[in-house]
């Protein structure tokens, strides 16, 4: 551990032009920083970090939904919510436009950036605003036992296979609603539609941010029509209009009431295969996302650590970010449900046999794209809220696909207008 951390710290000290405390192993000892992250986090973060660097950490945790209002309130008031904070991929555009966070290009070495491929999602105009610590992307989670019970031998590679498998499962009475798909007015409904849009071989916008989902033969249009078809054919529970993705995972998939999570999260595999938290332990597996063409696609939704510009303890904060995203720590942190963002750490864990469905995850992680190849725009949150509101209304039968696509295009236009 020390072997790895020391050079990192030393380079940090050099780069940020600290007076070189040459031999001192703990140049920042005695400093104190605050860190704000969503709960739950690993148990010994503060103790371990202090033991290695002498920097004291006040770790503050909040529920995921509460983090953003807390950050925004403090930042707009011109104060630091903490020295190191959570930074979700979806905030990148806004927070970059607001200039709230410190660019980390100069304090992170090239090898690290090379190893953490998804870091580019947090880069705007060449400025790296956050270092990803948990690697979320989309895979498909399936209940192998349900497939076997329904006599489906091969895992679906195309969307047609997927529908056929779901119908077989339903007909055999294995589960009443084989497919889990959130269509509530929450972020999970948006991300599922984005994934299906990719699965139908398309993108949301062209390079000038003109919507690409308005035509009936466009991928986005087909994706929503596909979702409504799944609902109409009784493959998706009509109650999904009120369920967040987490609720479908918890109260349906983990209970064996549904067999396929189209827009599955790799970080859930551990929990779903833990007999204490899941009734389907040992039956859950990740497979590559099926697409119309059969060639898998996925996109990344990583979370990063970042340092507000107004933080008064930047050196110590940088040290924490580096430590938390180091290869050794990522490998340790995987047991807490945080998939490593470092390709090296991911491969090593898989080789050591410590990853559930490791091969599928490693294979899928190599196909991960950014949702917005041009960089996440500042209007993303408003757009995304327009997307899930429209999908939710369509799923409740209050809108047609045409109207929903129109509504999404309007929401995008309004969001861009600021």
């Amino acid at each position, binding site marked *: 551990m020390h072997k790895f951390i020391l050079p990192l710290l030393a380079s940090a000290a050099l780069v940020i032009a600290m007076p070189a405390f040459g031999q001192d192993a703990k140049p920042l000892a005695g400093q104190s920083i605050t860190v704000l992250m969503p709960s739950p986090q690993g148990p010994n973060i503060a103790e371990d970090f202090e033991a290695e660097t002498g920097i004291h950490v006040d770790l503050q945790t909040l529920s995921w939904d509460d983090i953003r*209002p807390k950050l925004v309130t403090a930042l707009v008031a011109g104060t630091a919510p903490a020295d190191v904070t959570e930074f979700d991929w979806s905030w990148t555009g806004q927070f970059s436009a*607001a200039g709230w966070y410190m660019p980390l290009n100069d304090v992170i070495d090239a090898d690290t950036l090379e190893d953490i491929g998804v870091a580019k999602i947090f880069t705007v105009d060449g400025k790296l605003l956050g270092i990803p610590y948990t690697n979320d992307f989309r895979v498909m989670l399936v209940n192998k036992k349900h497939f076997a019970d329904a006599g489906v031998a091969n895992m679906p590679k195309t969307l047609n296979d997927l529908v056929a498998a779901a119908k077989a499962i339903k007909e055999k009475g294995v589960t009443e609603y084989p497919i889990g798909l959130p269509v509530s*007015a929450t972020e999970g409904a948006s991300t599922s539609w984005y994934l299906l849009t990719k699965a139908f071989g398309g993108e949301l916008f062209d390079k000038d941010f003109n919507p690409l989902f308005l035509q009936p033969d466009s991928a986005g249009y087909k994706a929503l029509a596909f979702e409504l078809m799944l609902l109409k054919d009784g493959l998706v529970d009509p109650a999904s209009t*009120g369920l967040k993705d987490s609720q479908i995972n918890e109260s349906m998939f983990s209970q064996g009431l549904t067999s396929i999570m189209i827009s599955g999260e790799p970080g859930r595999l551990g929990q779903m295969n833990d007999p204490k938290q899941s009734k389907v332990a040992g039956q859950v597996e990740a497979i590559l996302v099926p697409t119309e063409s059969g060639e898998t696609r996925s996109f990344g939704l990583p979370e990063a650590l970042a340092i507000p510009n107004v933080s008064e303890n930047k050196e110590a904060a940088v040290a924490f970010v580096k430590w938390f995203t180091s290869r050794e720590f990522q490998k340790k942190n995987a047991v807490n449900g945080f998939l490593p963002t470092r390709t090296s750490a991911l491969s090593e864990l898989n080789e050591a046999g410590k990853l559930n469905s490791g091969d599928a995850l490693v294979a899928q992680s190599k196909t991960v794209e950014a949702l917005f190849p041009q960089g996440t725009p500042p209007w993303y949150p408003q757009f995304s*809220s327009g997307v899930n509101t429209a999908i939710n209304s369509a799923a*409740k039968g209050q809108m047609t696909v045409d109207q929903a696509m129109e509504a999404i295009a309007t929401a995008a236009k309004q969001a861009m207008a*600021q």
Partner: protein
Amino acid sequence: MSVVASGNVANKRGVGFNADTTLGLLLVSPIVITMVALVFYPMGRTVWDSLHRVNPMQVGTPFVGLENYSRMLSDAQLATTWGNTLTYVVLAVLAEIILGVLAAALINQIKTGRQWVLAAVILPWALPGVVNSVIWLWIYQPGAGLLNGILVALGLPFENHVWFNDRTSAIIAVTVVHVWRMMPLTIVIVLAAMQGIPAHLYEAARIDGATRVQMFGLVTLPLVRSAIAVAMTNATVNAFNLFDEAWVLAGASLETRPVLVQIYLETFQNLRFSYGMALSVVVTLVSLLISLVYVLRVYRNTRFD
């Protein structure tokens, strides 16, 4: 305006700086300091900011006059949320007042165990709002929820009924949660007023041969009118501030989204701070105006009595 005028009248009556005045000012000074520092000044800042463009994603905060307010007129989504909020206000105030007065009258009728019944009835109000909303989320849940469970047990076809798939039932479901939490306040206020009605009035009505229903209509209701106005004011302000219930039960769903959720989204999701501030100023004014209507009506009516 009249408010300021009446303050001046007190002045002109010639109350100089005698001992009482000094003591009076001294005694209210903690209130003045607290409210100025923590409410009036921040509210002033909010009003001021609502006249500027405050958006951290854009440089500077130029003065824009009433632009944030005029923009509301062409905001279609906002219009929907106002419609939802006004529906909540009407439904919640009616339910809380009608059912609350009936409940208070019921409790006023019993002698034994009144304290315990009252405690039970107040309890929903004591439950923290966060817990309250999560519990109801669970009650309304289509599969294993309590509500569908009860209806199914009664032999009704509600196995997987989704309450939030229909706008009407979704709005009602949100209102029920709000009313469940807020009605205790109405009950307590009205019950207190009912207990203050002198027994001899009922006695007199009884001698005149009034039935129970007549007594309720002729004696009880007129005498608790001002308490009802207070309860209605509270109910109105609380219904305008409805947030948790809609947010936890239906997320940002446009069909149930109240104005306060819209303010939250504009401010914290879209980072349009000044627009959000202008909206919250309007919500404050509207709920104040409506409350004022009740209060004035009641004072006028009681004066005629």
